[in-house]
């Protein structure tokens, strides 16, 4: 049974690869060398591999955020904004943490990130629970708002001291994450993300609250009928979801960028939706899923350098993988519909 579960994603990848090969041949490039370059760029050596992991970490945090919300049938499209909200909170606080010891500054930063993201998610949750505002609209709108606030912050109140570039001053060195095995950029963030994945799994499948959330996602009526407060649960779940994305933002800031700037997130919150769906919302499966997408993102640039193929092609590959996996999941292939 376990092997069968792996078979589908692998088969989907194989089919996607085959389709891409056809496109590449038509473009006059050699599929084998392109894929080689992709793999080299993602896993070729230790440095590159750790870089892949670095790129996967925000995807992992956001993927977990999406999964938690989706399990409750709360369509959180706002992981990006929640991540930015977390990054902004951490970025603002981080500058003030100069005198503090590392052991205090780090958790403080992460808490700030969680708090910022939690508020951002919580607003959308509240709007849904109390005002029946569709959370898809709510979270997307809040994404825009977060983006604008970030823009304002880095041009205005938080702009760095020379006032030459639209980015914030760096966070205090005490607040930065240590990097292990230099010159790689392995950091605490990855470990934290994996730990969060395990925690989310335990939460969803082994706790009462997690059960309530999954029940609400599958049948809101029955859940309410048995006295579970679905309104409160909605707000709670969106808050938790936002917090996860926010920690992702704080973590990335603390480890890699150290400053706030407008293009902090290349759309992780949206990519994370694919990451979560491919993993069928299972937090443990989201780990390899995030690494897969991180690898594709990382390999894209190497692919361009080595073969002159546009990195946009990687987005095509990702899109194809998603579509093919979804096709594999439909009832056309199995009698799933009959079991429902």
């Amino acid at each position: 049974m376990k092997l069968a579960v792996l078979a589908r994603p692998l088969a989907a990848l194989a089919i996607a690869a085959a389709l891409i090969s056809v496109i590449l041949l038509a473009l006059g490039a050699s599929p084998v060398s392109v894929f080689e370059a992709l793999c080299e760029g993602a896993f070729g050596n230790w440095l590159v591999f750790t870089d892949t992991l670095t790129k996967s970490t925000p995807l992992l945090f956001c993927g977990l955020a999406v999964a938690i919300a989706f399990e409750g049938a709360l369509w959180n499209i706002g992981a990006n904004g929640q991540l930015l909200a977390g990054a902004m909170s951490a970025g603002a606080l981080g500058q003030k943490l100069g005198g503090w010891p590392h052991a205090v500054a780090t958790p403080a930063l992460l808490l700030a990130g969680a708090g910022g993201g939690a508020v951002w998610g919580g607003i959308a949750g509240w709007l849904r629970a109390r005002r029946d505002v569709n959370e898809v609209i709510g979270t997307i709108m809040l994404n825009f708002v977060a983006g604008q606030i970030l823009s304002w912050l880095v041009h205005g109140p938080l702009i760095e001291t020379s006032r030459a570039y639209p980015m914030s001053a760096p966070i205090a060195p005490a607040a930065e994450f240590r990097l292990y095995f230099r010159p790689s950029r392995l950091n605490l963030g990855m470990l934290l993300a994996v730990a969060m994945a395990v925690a989310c799994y335990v939460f969803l499948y082994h706790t009462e609250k997690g059960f309530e959330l999954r029940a609400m996602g599958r049948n809101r009526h029955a859940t309410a009928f048995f006295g579970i407060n679905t309104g409160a649960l909605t707000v709670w779940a969106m808050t938790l979801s936002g917090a996860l994305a926010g920690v992702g933002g704080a973590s990335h800031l603390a480890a890699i960028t150290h400053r706030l700037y407008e293009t902090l997130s290349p759309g992780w919150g949206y990519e994370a939706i694919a990451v979560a769906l491919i993993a069928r919302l299972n937090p443990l499966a989201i780990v390899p899923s995030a690494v897969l997408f991180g690898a594709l993102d990382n390999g894209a640039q190497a692919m361009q350098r080595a073969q002159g193929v546009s990195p946009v092609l990687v987005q095509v590959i990702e899109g194809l993988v998603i579509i093919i996996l979804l096709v594999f999941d439909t009832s056309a292939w199995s009698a799933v519909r009959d079991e429902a």
Partner: protein
Amino acid sequence: MRQSAKGGPDDKVLAANAITKRFGRTVALAGVDFCAREGEIHALVGENGAGKSTLISIFAGRLRPDYGHVTLDGAALGAGSATAALARGIAAVYQSPMLFERMGWEENLALGGFSPQRLNLGTVVADAEALAGELGFTLPPRGVVVERRSVAERVRLEILRALSFRPRVLILDEPTSVLSPAELQPFLQLLRHLGNQGRVVILVTHKLAEALAVADRITVLRHGRVTAERQASLTNEAELARLMMGEDIALPHSTTVPSFNHLAAAVELDKVTLKSGERLILDEISLTIAAGSIVGVAGVDGNGQDELVEVMAGVRAPTSGSITVHKLDGDSRDGLAVIPQNRDVDGLILNLSLWENLLLSRSVRERLATWHGFIRRSQAAQLCQDLMRRFRIRGSGPKALAGSLSGGNRQRFVVARALALAPAAIIAHDICRGLDLSAAAELRVRLREFAAQGGAVLLISCDLEELLALCNRLYVINRGRLTEVQRELPDLVEIGLLMSGASQQ
């Protein structure tokens, strides 16, 4: 009033050959042959879990058989597509109504065959009202969303919608279980009318008396196989029951009043009122349910029963009045368990496993299955296993999805869950609906046992026979108002009048 068999063996309209269907390890149908002829009303009877719903789902194109095929007028019917079946002229109405809850009835019907080309609500309403008039139904007021209407009205709308397609074959799954006595006769007459028009009507029912009254031929299913096919005029209830069950059973006709001890009140309702805007839904309901007794509330669906259940379950707060559930001294019973009417919507989460559905019950979570917020899976699974054995629920195990159980087994599960941890009181709303004779009898025995051991039961039902067989005290609810009626030597005329709201005190 039975019709003689029409046509010869050559005008088979709908025929099925060697149909086999499995769901995982359960064999739902094994080599079933079936045929229905021109202008015939064909009843399909059997216990719950016999395979009736599966068979008609295959006819209507909703399910694909693993083996075997279906033909309509001699031509094979493509399997697995409900729209194809509908286009060929097979329309079905199922047990759980499938309507768009947030739309009004006229919009729901517009999705039927009333306005094939252009969406003209005016003609839809006119045609629908004409058809409803023939049927003897009254349609609800326009513009009210369907989710506010009662289960009975929804089923009627579904039947209307199916008929709007002017189907060759109309399949009805337990349609009469929610009809009031006044609506039953016109409905049976309509079925005969449809048969006279040359249509085939396939009626799935467990009510043998109705099947005999209206059908031409009856097919009996048992554990996925056809045990017999009979002309209605040549058989009787006892024989059909025997064929269904495999043994002689006594039809429940007892109306003895079960004895009970006058213990303290277990549940008290004091002037419970519920208003929604201007509308008075519950009107100063005062009721005392003593421990060890079964109190019945009779009434036609839509008179406040749903809301009463919601208020007692704590899902809805009453506008005024109070509900108290007493815990008797020295008694470990606690709490109120509710068995809702619409089990698939309010009672179960079909996409979760059975042991997870158990966790919905607050008492299961609080008293057994959780430890500081963590779920104790083995405890819950064990309880589930026990319940499945005690209540004879057929399914592959605690990990089976609730949706994989047949309707009757789902009902057994919902009742089992309610009884699982000895609640002080149970509120049961229409629990025997759609169940066959032996399953219904079994359920009633459980309720009696529960009461005999000191529990309190509030039984809300539109089945007067059931209420008279079980209850110590009887009320009638009409427009949110309760009126008690005499339980010894009940005056059925008076009860009927109260139920229809004719006599107001």
